[in-house]
C-alpha cells in the first residue's frame, strides 16, 4: 500500500465524501463560504489599516482546508498553516478570534503576542478544540505533531493528528525528520502537502526535482494519495481514509492536494512571477466554491434559496464578529512582560521603564569608593 497514488473516486466502494448526508454537505458549504467571506472582511479591514500586520489569503484553497479538517473528530488535533483558516474554523476557531488576532487586540487568543491565525487550543479531549497554531519556520509543526500523536499512543487515547505543510516546507529538514520519525514510530498522523504551485514566489519545480510530492511517500514507507484539492468531497474522502487508517493503527499517511494559490503570498505581493492568465484560468474554471455550488445545485438539487440563506447568515455572523473585534481593547503594555516562564510568572521592567528617579542614580556611590584608600598610596 505504501506510496500508492490514487485519485478520489477510484477507490473501492463509494466515495466517503459523496456518501455524506445532505445536511453535512451543506455544512461543508457553510465552512467554505465562511472562510471566503471572513477573508473578504479582513481585506476590507486591512485596507482601512485596522489589520496591524500582513494579510494572508486562502482564496482558491478553501476546499482543501475545509474538506480535510472535516474528516477529523472533535477529539483529534490538527495543526494548520497560514492558508488553513478554513480548517481552523471547522475545528472551532471563531471569526471573532481571528479578527481580533489580525487586529492585535488585547483580548485576542494570544493577547496581541502573535499574528493572524497563529493561535491554538490543545490538550485534553472534550475540553479543548484541538488545533495547534503554527510558527513561521516552515516544517516545524511536523515533528511537533509527531510528539502530540506520540502522547496519544503512550496514553492509549483514540485520537489522530493532522498536520498541513506547503510544497515549500517539504524542502525543510524539519519536515523530513518529523515525517520519518512518525513513520518509524507508526504514529497516528496524517501529513497533508498542499501543493498550491508557489512557495512565496518560488514555483514547485524549483522546490523539488520529484515529479510529484506524493512520490515521497514511498521513500518514507508510508501510505500516499494525491487528490484534486479543489473538490471538497474528494478531499474529505481522501483525508477520511487516511484518518481511519491512522485510527486503526496503520500509521502515517502522506496526502498531496493539488490546488492553486490565487493571491500573492500576502496582500502586498503582486504575483509578478505568475504566468499571465494562470490566476484567471483557475478562477474561471476551478474555483472550489463555485464548483461545489454546482454540485449542490445540480446533483444534490439544493434550491438556490437555501444557499442564499446560508450566505446571509454568514454575513450577519461576520458583521457581528467585526463589531465585537473592533470594539475590543488594545493590549496593556505591561502585559508584554507576563508569561515567558511558568516561574517566574512575570519579568521586571528594565529600570528606565520602571519609573526610576534619574536624579538619584549618581548618588548610589558608597561612602568610600570601594576599599581604595588614596592616602595609603595603593591597594590595601
Amino acid at each position: 500500500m505504501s506510496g500508492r497514488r490514487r485519485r478520489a473516486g477510484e477507490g473501492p466502494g463509494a466515495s466517503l465524501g459523496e456518501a455524506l448526508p445532505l445536511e453535512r454537505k451543506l455544512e461543508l458549504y457553510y465552512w467554505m463560504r465562511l472562510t471566503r467571506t471572513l477573508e473578504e472582511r479582513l481585506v476590507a479591514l486591512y485596507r482601512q489599516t485596522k489589520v496591524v500586520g500582513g494579510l494572508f489569503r486562502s482564496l482558491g484553497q478553501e476546499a482543501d482546508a475545509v474538506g480535510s479538517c472535516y474528516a477529523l473528530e472533535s477529539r483529534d488535533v490538527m495543526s494548520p498553516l497560514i492558508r488553513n483558516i478554513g480548517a481552523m474554523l471547522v475545528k472551532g476557531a471563531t471569526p471573532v478570534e481571528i479578527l481580533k488576532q489580525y487586529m492585535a487586540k488585547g483580548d485576542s487568543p494570544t493577547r496581541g503576542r502573535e499574528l493572524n491565525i497563529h493561535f491554538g487550543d490543545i490538550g485534553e479531549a472534550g475540553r479543548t478544540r484541538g488545533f495547534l497554531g503554527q510558527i513561521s519556520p516552515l516544517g516545524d509543526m511536523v515533528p511537533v505533531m509527531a510528539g502530540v500523536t506520540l502522547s496519544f499512543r503512550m496514553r492509549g487515547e483514540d485520537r489522530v493528528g493532522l498536520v498541513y505543510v506547503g510544497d515549500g516546507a517539504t524542502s525543510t529538514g524539519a519536515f523530513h525528520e518529523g515525517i520519518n520519525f512518525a513513520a518509524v514510530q507508526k504514529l497516528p498522523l496524517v501529513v497533508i502537502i498542499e501543493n498550491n504551485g508557489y512557495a512565496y514566489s518560488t514555483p514547485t519545480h524549483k522546490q523539488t526535482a520529484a515529479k510529484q510530492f506524493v512520490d515521497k511517500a514511498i521513500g518514507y514507507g508510508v501510505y500516499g494519495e494525491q487528490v484534486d484539492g479543489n473538490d471538497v468531497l474528494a478531499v474529505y474522502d481522501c483525508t477520511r481514509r487516511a484518518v481511519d487508517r491512522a485510527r486503526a493503527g496503520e500509521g502515517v499517511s502522506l496526502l498531496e492536494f493539488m490546488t492553486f494559490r490565487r493571491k500573492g503570498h500576502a496582500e502586498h505581493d503582486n504575483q509578478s512571477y505568475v504566468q499571465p492568465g494562470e490566476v484567471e484560468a483557475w478562477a474561471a474554471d476551478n474555483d472550489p466554491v463555485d464548483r461545489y455550488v454546482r454540485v449542490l445545485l445540480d446533483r444534490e438539487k439544493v434550491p438556490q434559496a437555501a444557499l442564499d440563506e446560508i450566505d446571509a447568515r454568514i454575513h450577519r455572523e461576520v458583521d457581528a464578529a467585526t463589531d465585537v473585534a473592533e470594539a475590543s481593547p488594545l493590549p496593556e503594555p505591561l502585559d508584554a512582560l507576563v508569561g515567558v516562564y511558568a516561574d517566574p510568572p512575570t519579568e521586571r521592567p528594565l529600570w528606565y521603564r520602571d519609573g526610576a528617579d534619574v536624579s538619584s542614580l549618581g548618588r548610589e556611590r558608597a561612602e568610600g569608593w570601594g576599599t581604595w584608600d588614596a592616602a595609603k598610596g595603593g591597594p590595601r
Partner: protein
Amino acid sequence: MAEITYLEAIREALDEEMARDQNVFMLGEDIGAFGGAFKVTDGLMAKYGEQRVIDSPISEIAIVGAAAGAAHMGMRPVVEMQFIDFMANAYDMLTNYVATARYRAFLGCPMVVRGPSGGYVRGGPFHSQNPEAGFIHTPGLKVVYPSTAEDAKGLMKSAIRDDDCVLFFEHKYLYRRIKGVMPAGDHVVPIGKARTAREGTDLSIITYAATVHKSLEAAERLQAEHGLSVEVIDLRTLAPLDDEAIFATARKTNRVLVVHEDTRTGGIAGEITARISETCFAHLDAPVLRVTAHDIPLPYAPALEDFVLPQVQDIITAARRLAAW
C-alpha cells in the same frame, strides 16, 4: 550511603523521576538498548520498556520537536543529545518553537534537553563544545550546568519537574571523575540558585561546571602560595542567573574574576561583568576580569586543547593581577 559518580547521580535522578511520574519518558539516539553513548540511560529501557525509553532516528529536530508536542499534551519528556554539540541541529526548534511556546501560545513545554558537554577530554571540535551562551540569550529557556554529583542529581529532578524547558548540560569530564554521597530522600536542588563552593574575602571567582573544580584548585594554591582568600561561586544555573548571589559576592570581596570554559566573545562572563558593572560599580576595587577559552574552535591535540582552554595556572595569574589592582 556509598559515593556515586556524577554520571550515576544523573541516572539515579532519571530513574527516580520515571518511577515517580508516568508522564516522564526518554527519547534519544542509542539511549535504549545500548544505554546511551556514555551509558547515562543504561538499564532504563530494561526497567521501563521501549515505550518510555525510545531509540530515535538521528534527528535532533524531530527529537526536540516531538518532545515539545508531547510536552504540550502533559507528558514530561527528557531527551538526550548524544553530544551537546548536536543541539545546534535543533537550534530552530529550541529557540523559535520551544522557547516561545508559553509566551506566544500559552502552551507549556515541560521538557528537559540533556547531554554530555564540554572539553578537557580530547574530543575535538564536535565533541567538546559549550554552547550554553547561545541559549541563555533566548528568553523562555532555562539552562543549568552542575559541577557536583549532588547537584547533578538534584538539579535533574528539578529540571524534570519544571513546567518549562530546561537545557541540562552535563560535563563529560566530570562524568566519572567526580563523586558524591547523595542526600537521603527526595533530593531536589532548586533551579536559579547559585552555591558558594568556597568562602573567601579577598576576591571572588564566579564560575560553573568543570571550571568550578579548576577554580577551587586555584583557590587552594592562591591561599597557600600567595595568602589570598578566594571565594568561589558555583552558578549551577545560567538562566535565570542568580543576580543576588553574584552581587553579594561582588559587594563582599570587591574584586571579581569570572571563569568559564566557553569561548570569550559573547560568553556568559560578559553578561555577568555587565550586570556587576551596572549594579555594583561603587563596590568594585578593580575591573571585573575574565578567564575563558580562546575564541577558537576546540582542537583535538592535547597541546592545542590545553592551550585554548582555561587552566588552573591561568586562573591563578588572573586572580593575582586582580588582587594587585
